[in-house]
């Protein structure tokens, strides 16, 4: 109820008075008399082209060429009274109908002296709307009793910006009172049932909704004070991207009070009871003229994170790593907004947990104390007791993070992994113009290769993995590693340089790098992969490596026995396996006749190159003949063996299949 209703009644009063005066001398004996009446114009509604037709049997029809209610326009509106009566001071319309409301009958009466209007609308299924309006000395009261009142009757009157009401019934009362054209008091106490609404796109819709609304409001000196309660008991709502449903989970309840002054709606002391989450307290100020939030706060103590995350956070995280995650635990949460930006975020988490549905990660025993302020430095603490990432178990951690605005720093943190640790130094996270950037330096404290190979489901490797991480930087959806990563594996060193990850979290992540390995112990390496035994040291260079979707796309690789004096022996099995890799006739061992007599052979040098392009490995070796035959292993010592390659090109996919077959199944391949 607002100025609309008060001006409506005032205008109805004037209209009826005018119409009755006009009809008074004409009613008796008139047949099919038609009279045009002046337009009725009020701030919130207008009637144009009014034509009254009086029939001989006491029927009356009012035709309105154009009607405006608020901003909605209706044309050719027809009101018909089957019986128009005038008894003393009261004029009444019986068996009335309005073409805008088909199937609705109404009775309307107006007492001129008492200035009392009574309107009753009835329809099938016990639907009843009963309105009583009383005007006296400039003051007025209106009371509406609703019984199974179908909202669709007035759906067309609702502002177009709101989703359209398809169906729904109201029961209860609405009361309003005021003076002149000013509304001063309003009370609403209604229950709604089977309510359905939807916008055109279907992205904001509700179905089978039931609940109750109570609202009281008083106005004094243009300042409103209000308080209200709402309960949503049944039904489902989709308000993109959120989907909420009541039923077994409980009832959503909302209690609030506040005011409305100079166009600003104030919500104070609001409490929302959210099923399976807890109570959340809210305050807000909304500038209805600027259509902007002036300030707001949300606070929840000991709320359950399970449903809070699943229902209210997950729909916004569909493209993130957390899209399939579930969260457990309880937390105190708070958010404050003022001056156009977030001023405070608090997240005190107790014994929380997070688990990825795709089993990529999980953390347990999470505790956090985050009290972020927009303009004041603060320190957050985060700890968890255990976890796992891609099958790699994580030890307990306790980190501290300095925060100032959108800058976050961790001076040093350690993440225990497989008996060693990933050490992160000078971690910086900050918001760039378009997205977030981060960088850190660090190191890997010796990690057990035995444990790592076990979790990676690789053949058992011995030794440790350790190294330095000079600088890792993420920006523009790319991770760049500055300098060179240095690892120690198989008693040798591995240097990874020019390392880049493109689209690291996308569908087709791309890795670029150069790898330079020195003095790898072939004995450890070949034993690990069940390749037969090769004793010696080897250098491996893989330049211009590009890996996409975790498959090699291109590289220029060169494997060469390391310089220096050391024992160089190769087993019969290793020779056979190398020979089998190139396919039948691709590789052959010279002195094959003697292979069967000895278990191991001496060699002088190993050289094998492979340039990968378009899934073809273009191979080469130490020296080649004019016919293209090249040496892969040059014999030396007694007994010696030389292995030659005959094929220059081999399908990379096929080669990998053979390596896997040899390494994993340890299948014997007979040299022909």
């Amino acid at each position, binding site marked *: 109820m607002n100025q609309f209703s008060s001006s409506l009644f005032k205008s109805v009063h004037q209209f009826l008075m005018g119409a009755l005066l006009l009809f008074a001398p004409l009613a008796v004996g008139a047949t099919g008399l038609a009279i045009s009446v002046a337009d009725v114009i009020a701030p919130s509604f207008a009637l144009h082209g009014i034509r009254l037709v009086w029939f001989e049997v006491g029927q009356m029809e009012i035709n309105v060429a154009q009607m405006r209610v608020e901003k909605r326009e209706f044309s050719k509106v027809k009101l018909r009274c089957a019986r128009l009566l005038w008894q003393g001071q009261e004029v009444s319309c019986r068996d009335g109908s309005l073409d805008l409301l088909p199937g609705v009958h109404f009775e309307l009466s107006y007492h001129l002296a008492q200035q009392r209007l009574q309107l009753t609308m009835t329809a099938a299924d016990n639907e009843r709307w009963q309105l009583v309006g009383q005007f006296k000395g400039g003051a007025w009261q209106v009371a509406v009793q609703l019984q199974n009142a179908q909202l669709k009757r007035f759906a067309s009157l609702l502002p177009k910006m709101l989703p359209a009401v398809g169906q729904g019934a109201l029961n209860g009362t609405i009361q309003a009172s005021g003076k002149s054209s000013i509304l001063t008091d309003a009370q609403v106490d209604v229950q709604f049932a089977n309510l359905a609404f939807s916008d055109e796109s279907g992205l904001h*819709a509700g179905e089978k909704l039931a609940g109750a609304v109570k609202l009281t409001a008083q106005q004094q000196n243009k300042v409103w004070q209000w308080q209200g309660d709402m309960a949503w008991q049944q039904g489902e709502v989709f308000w993109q991207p959120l*989907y909420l449903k009541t039923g077994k989970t409980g009832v959503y309840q909302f209690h609030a009070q506040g005011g409305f002054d100079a166009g600003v709606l104030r919500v104070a002391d609001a409490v929302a009871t959210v099923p399976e989450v807890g109570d959340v307290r809210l305050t807000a100020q909304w500038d209805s003229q600027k259509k902007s939030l002036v300030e707001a706060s949300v606070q929840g103590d000991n709320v359950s994170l399970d449903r809070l995350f699943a229902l209210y956070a997950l729909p916004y995280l569909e493209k993130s790593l957390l899209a399939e995650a579930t969260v457990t635990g309880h937390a105190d949460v708070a958010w404050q907004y003022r001056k156009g930006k977030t001023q405070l975020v608090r997240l005190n988490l107790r014994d929380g947990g997070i688990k990825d549905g795709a089993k990529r990660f999980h953390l347990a025993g999470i505790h956090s104390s985050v009290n972020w302020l927009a303009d004041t430095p603060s320190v957050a603490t985060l700890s968890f007791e255990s976890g796992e990432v891609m099958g790699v178990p994580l030890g307990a951690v306790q980190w501290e993070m300095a925060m100032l605005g959108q800058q976050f720093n961790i001076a040093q943190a350690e993440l225990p992994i497989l008996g060693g640790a990933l050490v992160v130094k000078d971690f910086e996270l900050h918001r760039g113009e378009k997205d977030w950037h981060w960088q850190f330096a660090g190191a890997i404290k010796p990690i057990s290769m035995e444990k790592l190979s076990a979790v990676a489901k690789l053949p058992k490797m011995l030794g440790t993995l350790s190294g330095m991480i000079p600088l890792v930087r993420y920006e523009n959806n790319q991770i760049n590693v500055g300098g060179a990563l240095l690892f120690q594996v198989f008693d040798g060193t591995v240097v990874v340089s020019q390392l880049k990850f493109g689209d690291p979290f996308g*569908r087709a992540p791309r890795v670029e790098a150069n790898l330079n390995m020195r003095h790898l112990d072939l004995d450890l390496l070949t034993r690990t992969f069940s390749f037969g035994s090769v004793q010696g040291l080897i250098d491996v260079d893989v330049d211009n490596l590009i890996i996409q*979707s975790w498959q090699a796309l291109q590289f220029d690789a060169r494997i060469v026995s390391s310089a220096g004096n050391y024992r160089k022996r190769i087993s019969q099995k290793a020779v056979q396996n190398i020979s089998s890799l190139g396919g039948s006739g691709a590789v052959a061992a010279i002195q094959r006749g003697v292979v069967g007599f000895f278990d191991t052979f001496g060699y002088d040098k190993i050289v094998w190159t492979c340039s990968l392009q378009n899934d073809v490995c273009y191979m080469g070796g130490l020296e080649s003949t004019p016919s293209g035959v090249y040496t892969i292993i040059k014999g030396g010592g007694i007994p010696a063996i030389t292995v030659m390659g005959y094929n220059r090109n081999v399908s990379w996919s096929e080669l990998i299949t053979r390596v896997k077959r040899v390494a994993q199944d340890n299948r014997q391949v007979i040299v022909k």
Partner: protein
Amino acid sequence: MKNNLKLVLSLLALTTALNVFAAADLEVNTPGVNAIKQSMQTRHGQLSGFYTSGAIGLTSDGLVAVRDASAVPLSARQSVNGLVAAENQDRNALYSEIATANAHPEWQAEIRSTFAQRWIQLAQPGWWVQVGGAWKQK
């Protein structure tokens, strides 16, 4: 005369450009393209029912869009939105990846346009496709 020369040169430049693009291998096979195609293929089973019901349709820019959300129960609307977002992420990645695999990242727009026409041609009868900005049922 001068204008004619300009026209001939422009046509020559355009023809050259089209010939260059015509050389693009749209069936190029890389691990990235394969991974994206695999992902799209897996998702297609979830999307096909929504194409048939008219809830989603194929757009003229080589993507998919929610056309009529009311054809989907309220409880499933967000999952349809999620499927559409994931499908579009894959489609954008596919066009980019094919252009990169052809060593011409600048061809992405033409590749997208060619694929858009292809998707629409291959759409089954009853599916909704966008033609000239308006939805049309095949």
